[in-house]
Protein backbone atom coordinates (compact mmCIF):
# COMPACT_ATOMS: atom_id res chain seq x y z
CA UNK A 1 0.00 0.00 0.00
CA UNK A 2 1.43 3.41 -0.88
CA UNK A 3 2.15 5.90 1.87
CA UNK A 4 0.12 9.05 1.56
CA UNK A 5 0.79 12.46 3.04
CA UNK A 6 -1.66 15.29 2.54
CA UNK A 7 -0.26 18.74 3.31
CA UNK A 8 -2.47 21.75 3.80
CA UNK A 9 -3.45 24.52 6.21
CA UNK A 10 -5.49 23.99 9.38
CA UNK A 11 -8.78 24.57 7.57
CA UNK A 12 -11.14 22.49 5.44
CA UNK A 13 -11.48 24.59 2.29
CA UNK A 14 -9.36 22.88 -0.40
CA UNK A 15 -8.29 19.75 1.47
CA UNK A 16 -11.29 18.41 3.30
CA UNK A 17 -12.71 16.52 0.30
CA UNK A 18 -9.43 14.59 0.18
CA UNK A 19 -9.52 13.92 3.91
CA UNK A 20 -13.08 12.63 3.55
CA UNK A 21 -12.06 10.36 0.68
CA UNK A 22 -9.32 8.81 2.85
CA UNK A 23 -11.66 8.32 5.79
CA UNK A 24 -14.43 6.95 3.60
CA UNK A 25 -12.01 4.44 2.14
CA UNK A 26 -10.58 3.77 5.61
CA UNK A 27 -7.18 4.47 4.18
CA UNK A 28 -4.34 5.63 6.41
CA UNK A 29 -2.71 8.93 5.57
CA UNK A 30 -0.62 11.62 7.21
CA UNK A 31 -2.80 14.69 7.66
CA UNK A 32 -0.12 17.38 7.74
CA UNK A 33 -1.52 20.76 8.71
CA UNK A 34 0.88 23.66 8.36
CA UNK A 35 0.34 27.00 10.02
CA UNK A 36 -0.41 30.04 7.90
CA UNK A 37 2.98 31.40 8.92
CA UNK A 38 4.75 28.30 7.65
CA UNK A 39 3.48 29.19 4.20
CA UNK A 40 6.86 30.51 3.06
CA UNK A 41 8.66 27.24 3.64
CA UNK A 42 6.05 25.45 1.58
CA UNK A 43 6.83 27.62 -1.37
CA UNK A 44 10.28 26.10 -1.49
CA UNK A 45 9.11 22.52 -1.46
CA UNK A 46 5.82 22.60 -3.33
CA UNK A 47 6.17 22.32 -7.11
CA UNK A 48 3.24 24.65 -7.63
CA UNK A 49 3.98 27.07 -4.78
CA UNK A 50 0.62 26.16 -3.34
CA UNK A 51 -1.21 23.83 -1.05
CA UNK A 52 -2.76 21.30 -0.84
CA UNK A 53 -0.09 18.84 -1.83
CA UNK A 54 -0.31 15.06 -1.93
CA UNK A 55 2.97 13.21 -1.44
CA UNK A 56 3.06 9.50 -2.34
CA UNK A 57 5.75 7.30 -0.84
CA UNK A 58 7.71 10.37 0.15
CA UNK A 59 8.67 11.14 -3.43
CA UNK A 60 5.84 11.71 -5.89
CA UNK A 61 4.11 15.05 -5.46
CA UNK A 62 0.68 15.83 -6.80
CA UNK A 63 -0.57 19.39 -6.53
CA UNK A 64 -3.81 21.16 -7.42
CA UNK A 65 -6.71 20.26 -5.18
CA UNK A 66 -9.06 19.07 -7.93
CA UNK A 67 -6.40 16.75 -9.32
CA UNK A 68 -5.72 15.35 -5.85
CA UNK A 69 -9.44 14.69 -5.37
CA UNK A 70 -9.78 13.03 -8.78
CA UNK A 71 -6.67 10.90 -8.26
CA UNK A 72 -7.70 9.68 -4.83
CA UNK A 73 -11.27 9.14 -5.97
CA UNK A 74 -10.00 6.90 -8.75
CA UNK A 75 -7.88 4.90 -6.29
CA UNK A 76 -10.79 4.33 -3.94
CA UNK A 77 -13.82 4.03 -6.19
CA UNK A 78 -15.25 7.45 -5.60
CA UNK A 79 -15.07 8.61 -9.20
CA UNK A 80 -17.75 8.24 -11.89
CA UNK A 81 -18.92 4.75 -12.87
CA UNK A 82 -18.17 5.28 -16.55
CA UNK A 83 -16.10 7.72 -18.61
CA UNK A 84 -19.25 9.63 -19.45
CA UNK A 85 -20.43 9.80 -15.89
CA UNK A 86 -16.96 10.87 -14.86
CA UNK A 87 -17.11 13.68 -17.39
CA UNK A 88 -20.51 14.68 -16.07
CA UNK A 89 -19.42 14.98 -12.45
CA UNK A 90 -16.22 16.75 -13.48
CA UNK A 91 -18.24 19.39 -15.31
CA UNK A 92 -20.19 19.98 -12.15
CA UNK A 93 -17.04 20.17 -10.07
CA UNK A 94 -15.30 22.57 -12.44
CA UNK A 95 -18.35 24.78 -12.59
CA UNK A 96 -18.48 24.82 -8.80
CA UNK A 97 -14.76 25.55 -8.62
CA UNK A 98 -15.33 28.53 -10.88
CA UNK A 99 -17.78 29.87 -8.34
CA UNK A 100 -15.31 29.23 -5.53
CA UNK A 101 -12.69 31.33 -7.30
CA UNK A 102 -15.11 34.24 -7.60
CA UNK A 103 -15.93 34.00 -3.90
CA UNK A 104 -12.30 33.42 -2.90
CA UNK A 105 -11.52 37.01 -1.78
CA UNK A 106 -14.21 36.69 0.86
CA UNK A 107 -12.72 33.45 2.18
CA UNK A 108 -9.24 34.95 2.31
CA UNK A 109 -10.62 37.93 4.17
CA UNK A 110 -12.58 35.74 6.56
CA UNK A 111 -9.70 33.39 7.31
CA UNK A 112 -6.80 35.79 7.28
CA UNK A 113 -8.14 39.32 7.11
CA UNK A 114 -6.53 39.78 3.72
CA UNK A 115 -8.16 42.35 1.46
CA UNK A 116 -7.64 42.36 -2.30
CA UNK A 117 -5.23 45.00 -3.57
CA UNK A 118 -7.78 46.73 -5.74
CA UNK A 119 -10.53 46.70 -3.14
CA UNK A 120 -11.36 50.05 -1.71
CA UNK A 121 -12.91 50.37 1.71
CA UNK A 122 -16.45 51.64 1.32
CA UNK A 123 -16.44 50.37 -2.21
CA UNK A 124 -20.04 49.35 -2.02
CA UNK A 125 -21.90 50.97 0.83
CA UNK A 126 -20.34 53.58 3.11
CA UNK A 127 -22.04 52.33 6.24
CA UNK A 128 -21.19 48.68 5.84
CA UNK A 129 -18.28 47.27 7.75
CA UNK A 130 -15.59 45.65 5.65
CA UNK A 131 -16.83 42.11 6.19
CA UNK A 132 -20.27 42.94 4.83
CA UNK A 133 -18.75 44.69 1.83
CA UNK A 134 -16.66 41.60 1.15
CA UNK A 135 -19.72 39.38 1.50
CA UNK A 136 -21.79 41.55 -0.79
CA UNK A 137 -19.14 41.91 -3.45
CA UNK A 138 -17.65 38.43 -3.61
CA UNK A 139 -19.57 35.69 -1.85
CA UNK A 140 -23.21 36.61 -2.30
CA UNK A 141 -23.17 37.17 -6.08
CA UNK A 142 -21.24 33.94 -6.63
CA UNK A 143 -23.72 31.92 -4.58
CA UNK A 144 -26.72 33.56 -6.21
CA UNK A 145 -25.45 32.80 -9.69
CA UNK A 146 -24.10 29.28 -9.28
CA UNK A 147 -26.14 27.52 -6.59
CA UNK A 148 -29.40 27.35 -8.56
CA UNK A 149 -27.60 25.69 -11.45
CA UNK A 150 -25.94 23.19 -9.11
CA UNK A 151 -29.33 22.41 -7.59
CA UNK A 152 -30.80 21.78 -11.02
CA UNK A 153 -27.98 19.35 -11.76
CA UNK A 154 -28.53 17.59 -8.45
CA UNK A 155 -32.23 17.21 -9.17
CA UNK A 156 -31.50 15.59 -12.53
CA UNK A 157 -29.65 12.75 -10.80
CA UNK A 158 -31.47 9.48 -10.13
CA UNK A 159 -30.56 9.52 -6.44
CA UNK A 160 -29.41 11.83 -3.65
CA UNK A 161 -25.97 12.33 -5.17
CA UNK A 162 -24.64 14.07 -8.24
CA UNK A 163 -23.81 10.86 -10.11
CA UNK A 164 -26.47 8.31 -11.05
CA UNK A 165 -24.21 5.51 -9.88
CA UNK A 166 -23.99 6.87 -6.32
CA UNK A 167 -21.66 8.86 -4.13
CA UNK A 168 -18.54 10.40 -5.64
CA UNK A 169 -15.85 12.86 -4.52
CA UNK A 170 -17.94 15.66 -6.00
CA UNK A 171 -20.55 15.13 -3.28
CA UNK A 172 -17.81 15.66 -0.66
CA UNK A 173 -16.46 18.65 -2.56
CA UNK A 174 -19.73 20.53 -2.84
CA UNK A 175 -21.23 19.62 0.54
CA UNK A 176 -18.16 20.82 2.44
CA UNK A 177 -18.44 24.25 0.85
CA UNK A 178 -22.18 24.39 1.51
CA UNK A 179 -21.41 23.66 5.18
CA UNK A 180 -18.90 26.49 5.20
CA UNK A 181 -21.48 28.86 3.83
CA UNK A 182 -23.88 27.69 6.53
CA UNK A 183 -21.25 28.44 9.18
CA UNK A 184 -20.75 31.96 8.02
CA UNK A 185 -24.12 33.06 6.60
CA UNK A 186 -26.78 30.59 7.74
CA UNK A 187 -29.73 32.56 6.45
CA UNK A 188 -28.19 32.73 2.99
CA UNK A 189 -27.48 28.98 3.02
CA UNK A 190 -31.05 28.30 4.11
CA UNK A 191 -32.25 29.76 0.85
CA UNK A 192 -30.84 26.63 -0.82
CA UNK A 193 -32.48 23.81 1.13
CA UNK A 194 -31.74 21.16 -1.50
CA UNK A 195 -28.01 21.65 -0.96
CA UNK A 196 -28.39 21.65 2.81
CA UNK A 197 -30.29 18.37 2.52
CA UNK A 198 -27.63 16.96 0.21
CA UNK A 199 -24.92 17.89 2.69
CA UNK A 200 -26.83 16.28 5.53
CA UNK A 201 -27.07 13.03 3.59
CA UNK A 202 -23.38 13.06 2.64
CA UNK A 203 -22.31 13.80 6.19
CA UNK A 204 -24.49 11.00 7.56
CA UNK A 205 -22.60 8.29 5.72
CA UNK A 206 -21.49 5.67 8.29
CA UNK A 207 -17.90 5.48 7.05
CA UNK A 208 -17.38 9.15 7.92
CA UNK A 209 -18.90 9.26 11.39
CA UNK A 210 -15.79 8.44 13.45
CA UNK A 211 -13.84 11.17 11.74
CA UNK A 212 -16.63 13.75 11.77
CA UNK A 213 -17.25 13.24 15.48
CA UNK A 214 -13.68 14.08 16.40
CA UNK A 215 -13.01 16.65 13.69
CA UNK A 216 -12.28 20.17 14.94
CA UNK A 217 -14.78 22.79 13.81
CA UNK A 218 -13.54 25.39 11.35
CA UNK A 219 -15.65 28.00 9.58
CA UNK A 220 -14.23 27.13 6.14
Amino acid sequence: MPEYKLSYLPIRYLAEPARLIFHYAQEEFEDEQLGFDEWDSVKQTSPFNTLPLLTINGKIQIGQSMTIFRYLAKQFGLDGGTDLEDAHINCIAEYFREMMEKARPFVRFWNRGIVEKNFEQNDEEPEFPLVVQQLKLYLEPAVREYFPVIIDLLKKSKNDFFADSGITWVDFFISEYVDSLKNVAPELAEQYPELLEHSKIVHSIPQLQNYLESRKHTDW
Partner: protein
Amino acid sequence: MPKYKLNYFDIRGFGEIPRLIFNYAGQEFEDRRWAYPDWPEVKHESETGKSPWLEVDDERIYESGAINRYLATTFGLAGKDPMENAQIDSIFDIYKDAFKEAAGIYMWVKSPYYNQVPVFYHEIVEKQYGKLEDMKPKYDEAIEFYWPLVQKRLDKSGTGFFVSKLSWADFFLADKIETAMNLDENFEKKFPKMIEYKNRIHSEPKIQEYLKNRKESFY
Protein backbone atom coordinates in the same frame (compact mmCIF):
# COMPACT_ATOMS: atom_id res chain seq x y z
CA MET B 1 -24.81 83.73 -8.11
CA PRO B 2 -23.61 80.29 -9.18
CA LYS B 3 -25.88 77.26 -9.28
CA TYR B 4 -25.31 74.97 -6.33
CA LYS B 5 -26.17 71.28 -6.24
CA LEU B 6 -25.46 69.07 -3.25
CA ASN B 7 -25.31 65.31 -3.90
CA TYR B 8 -25.66 63.00 -0.90
CA PHE B 9 -27.62 60.23 0.80
CA ASP B 10 -31.00 61.00 2.28
CA ILE B 11 -29.51 61.27 5.78
CA ARG B 12 -27.78 63.98 7.84
CA GLY B 13 -24.44 62.19 8.01
CA PHE B 14 -21.78 64.35 6.37
CA GLY B 15 -24.19 66.21 4.15
CA GLU B 16 -26.22 68.17 6.67
CA ILE B 17 -23.73 71.00 7.23
CA PRO B 18 -23.90 72.27 3.62
CA ARG B 19 -27.73 72.18 3.89
CA LEU B 20 -27.62 74.20 7.09
CA ILE B 21 -25.17 76.70 5.63
CA PHE B 22 -27.26 77.26 2.51
CA ASN B 23 -30.39 77.73 4.60
CA TYR B 24 -28.59 80.05 7.00
CA ALA B 25 -27.45 82.16 4.05
CA GLY B 26 -30.85 82.09 2.42
CA GLN B 27 -29.13 80.65 -0.65
CA GLU B 28 -31.10 78.50 -3.09
CA PHE B 29 -29.54 75.15 -3.90
CA GLU B 30 -30.53 71.77 -5.30
CA ASP B 31 -30.63 69.25 -2.46
CA ARG B 32 -30.22 66.00 -4.34
CA ARG B 33 -30.68 62.93 -2.13
CA TRP B 34 -30.85 59.19 -2.70
CA ALA B 35 -31.72 56.18 -0.56
CA TYR B 36 -29.01 53.67 0.36
CA PRO B 37 -30.20 50.97 -2.08
CA ASP B 38 -29.89 53.42 -4.97
CA TRP B 39 -26.26 54.23 -4.25
CA PRO B 40 -24.70 51.62 -6.59
CA GLU B 41 -26.36 53.36 -9.57
CA VAL B 42 -25.32 56.83 -8.46
CA LYS B 43 -21.79 55.90 -7.46
CA HIS B 44 -20.36 56.00 -10.95
CA GLU B 45 -21.28 59.67 -11.21
CA SER B 46 -18.79 60.46 -8.48
CA GLU B 47 -15.21 60.76 -9.66
CA THR B 48 -14.03 59.57 -6.25
CA GLY B 49 -16.72 56.91 -5.90
CA LYS B 50 -17.84 58.68 -2.76
CA SER B 51 -20.28 61.31 -1.59
CA PRO B 52 -21.12 64.03 -0.70
CA TRP B 53 -19.96 66.17 -3.56
CA LEU B 54 -20.97 69.75 -4.33
CA GLU B 55 -21.51 71.06 -7.84
CA VAL B 56 -20.92 74.78 -8.26
CA ASP B 57 -21.89 75.60 -11.85
CA ASP B 58 -19.61 73.28 -13.84
CA GLU B 59 -17.10 72.84 -11.01
CA ARG B 60 -17.14 70.05 -8.43
CA ILE B 61 -15.90 69.79 -4.87
CA TYR B 62 -15.43 66.39 -3.22
CA GLU B 63 -14.93 65.68 0.50
CA SER B 64 -17.30 67.08 3.10
CA GLY B 65 -14.51 69.00 4.87
CA ALA B 66 -13.62 70.85 1.70
CA ILE B 67 -17.28 71.53 0.93
CA ASN B 68 -17.92 72.85 4.43
CA ARG B 69 -14.88 75.13 4.36
CA TYR B 70 -15.76 76.48 0.91
CA LEU B 71 -19.36 77.25 1.82
CA ALA B 72 -18.41 78.65 5.22
CA THR B 73 -15.91 81.01 3.63
CA THR B 74 -18.44 82.03 0.99
CA PHE B 75 -21.28 82.66 3.42
CA GLY B 76 -19.53 84.07 6.48
CA LEU B 77 -19.42 80.98 8.67
CA ALA B 78 -15.65 80.50 8.76
CA GLY B 79 -13.37 81.37 11.69
CA LYS B 80 -11.97 84.89 11.93
CA ASP B 81 -8.33 83.86 11.39
CA PRO B 82 -6.12 80.91 10.45
CA MET B 83 -5.93 79.61 14.03
CA GLU B 84 -9.73 79.59 14.45
CA ASN B 85 -10.07 77.80 11.10
CA ALA B 86 -7.45 75.28 12.17
CA GLN B 87 -9.34 74.56 15.38
CA ILE B 88 -12.54 74.04 13.43
CA ASP B 89 -10.82 71.70 10.97
CA SER B 90 -9.21 69.88 13.85
CA ILE B 91 -12.39 69.10 15.76
CA PHE B 92 -14.02 67.96 12.53
CA ASP B 93 -11.17 65.58 11.66
CA ILE B 94 -10.95 64.26 15.20
CA TYR B 95 -14.61 63.28 15.02
CA LYS B 96 -14.10 61.32 11.82
CA ASP B 97 -11.13 59.52 13.33
CA ALA B 98 -12.79 58.72 16.64
CA PHE B 99 -16.02 57.30 15.25
CA LYS B 100 -14.80 54.97 12.54
CA GLU B 101 -14.45 51.17 12.83
CA ALA B 102 -16.16 49.52 15.80
CA ALA B 103 -17.78 52.74 16.97
CA GLY B 104 -19.02 53.41 13.44
CA ILE B 105 -20.35 49.89 13.05
CA TYR B 106 -22.22 50.22 16.34
CA MET B 107 -23.94 53.30 14.97
CA TRP B 108 -25.03 51.45 11.86
CA VAL B 109 -26.24 48.39 13.74
CA LYS B 110 -28.28 50.54 16.11
CA SER B 111 -29.81 52.56 13.28
CA PRO B 112 -33.03 51.82 11.37
CA TYR B 113 -30.92 51.24 8.24
CA TYR B 114 -29.63 47.97 9.67
CA ASN B 115 -33.01 46.32 9.25
CA GLN B 116 -33.06 47.24 5.60
CA VAL B 117 -30.32 44.76 4.77
CA PRO B 118 -30.65 40.95 4.51
CA VAL B 119 -30.52 38.90 7.70
CA PHE B 120 -27.35 37.12 6.69
CA TYR B 121 -25.53 40.46 6.73
CA HIS B 122 -26.55 40.66 10.39
CA GLU B 123 -25.27 37.15 10.99
CA ILE B 124 -21.90 37.94 9.53
CA VAL B 125 -21.59 41.21 11.43
CA GLU B 126 -22.31 39.37 14.65
CA LYS B 127 -19.72 36.75 13.89
CA GLN B 128 -17.08 39.38 13.30
CA TYR B 129 -17.97 42.03 15.87
CA GLY B 130 -20.24 40.32 18.34
CA LYS B 131 -23.62 41.62 19.41
CA LEU B 132 -24.63 45.21 19.98
CA GLU B 133 -23.61 44.95 23.65
CA ASP B 134 -20.11 43.85 22.62
CA MET B 135 -19.67 46.81 20.29
CA LYS B 136 -21.08 49.43 22.66
CA PRO B 137 -17.89 49.83 24.77
CA LYS B 138 -15.96 51.00 21.70
CA TYR B 139 -18.69 53.51 20.93
CA ASP B 140 -18.81 54.72 24.54
CA GLU B 141 -15.04 55.08 24.50
CA ALA B 142 -15.28 57.35 21.48
CA ILE B 143 -17.97 59.45 23.14
CA GLU B 144 -16.02 59.76 26.40
CA PHE B 145 -12.98 60.82 24.40
CA TYR B 146 -14.57 63.31 22.03
CA TRP B 147 -17.11 65.41 23.88
CA PRO B 148 -14.89 66.48 26.78
CA LEU B 149 -12.45 67.75 24.15
CA VAL B 150 -15.23 69.82 22.62
CA GLN B 151 -16.28 71.13 26.03
CA LYS B 152 -12.72 72.18 26.75
CA ARG B 153 -12.63 74.35 23.64
CA LEU B 154 -16.08 75.77 24.31
CA ASP B 155 -14.92 76.73 27.81
CA LYS B 156 -11.76 78.28 26.37
CA SER B 157 -13.74 80.22 23.79
CA GLY B 158 -16.21 81.56 26.35
CA THR B 159 -18.39 83.05 23.58
CA GLY B 160 -20.96 80.25 23.57
CA PHE B 161 -19.64 79.33 20.12
CA PHE B 162 -16.79 77.05 19.22
CA VAL B 163 -14.70 80.03 18.09
CA SER B 164 -15.25 83.78 18.44
CA LYS B 165 -18.63 83.71 16.67
CA LEU B 166 -21.04 81.33 14.96
CA SER B 167 -19.20 79.09 12.49
CA TRP B 168 -19.76 75.85 10.64
CA ALA B 169 -18.14 74.09 13.58
CA ASP B 170 -21.22 74.91 15.67
CA PHE B 171 -23.55 73.50 13.01
CA PHE B 172 -21.39 70.38 12.79
CA LEU B 173 -21.16 69.81 16.55
CA ALA B 174 -24.87 70.46 17.13
CA ASP B 175 -25.63 67.95 14.41
CA LYS B 176 -23.39 65.31 15.95
CA ILE B 177 -24.87 65.94 19.39
CA GLU B 178 -28.25 65.15 17.89
CA THR B 179 -26.83 61.88 16.55
CA ALA B 180 -25.27 61.09 19.92
CA MET B 181 -28.66 61.60 21.57
CA ASN B 182 -30.29 59.20 19.12
CA LEU B 183 -27.67 56.59 19.86
CA ASP B 184 -27.73 56.82 23.64
CA GLU B 185 -30.62 57.98 25.81
CA ASN B 186 -28.08 58.64 28.58
CA PHE B 187 -26.11 61.15 26.54
CA GLU B 188 -28.20 63.99 27.97
CA LYS B 189 -27.32 62.94 31.50
CA LYS B 190 -23.64 62.51 30.70
CA PHE B 191 -23.22 65.78 28.81
CA PRO B 192 -25.96 68.24 29.83
CA LYS B 193 -23.88 71.23 28.72
CA MET B 194 -23.73 69.75 25.22
CA ILE B 195 -27.51 69.62 25.07
CA GLU B 196 -27.65 73.28 26.10
CA TYR B 197 -25.10 74.16 23.45
CA LYS B 198 -26.96 72.25 20.77
CA ASN B 199 -30.29 73.85 21.65
CA ARG B 200 -28.71 77.27 21.56
CA ILE B 201 -27.17 76.70 18.13
CA HIS B 202 -30.40 75.24 16.80
CA SER B 203 -32.29 78.30 17.97
CA GLU B 204 -30.42 80.41 15.40
CA PRO B 205 -33.29 82.23 13.62
CA LYS B 206 -31.98 81.80 10.11
CA ILE B 207 -32.21 78.00 10.26
CA GLN B 208 -35.52 77.68 12.14
CA GLU B 209 -37.68 77.14 9.08
CA TYR B 210 -35.35 74.46 7.76
CA LEU B 211 -35.06 72.65 11.09
CA LYS B 212 -38.81 72.69 11.60
CA ASN B 213 -39.59 71.19 8.22
CA ARG B 214 -36.74 68.78 7.75
CA LYS B 215 -37.33 65.04 7.86
CA GLU B 216 -36.02 62.99 10.79
CA SER B 217 -32.71 61.27 10.22
CA PHE B 218 -31.18 58.87 12.70
CA TYR B 219 -27.67 60.01 11.85
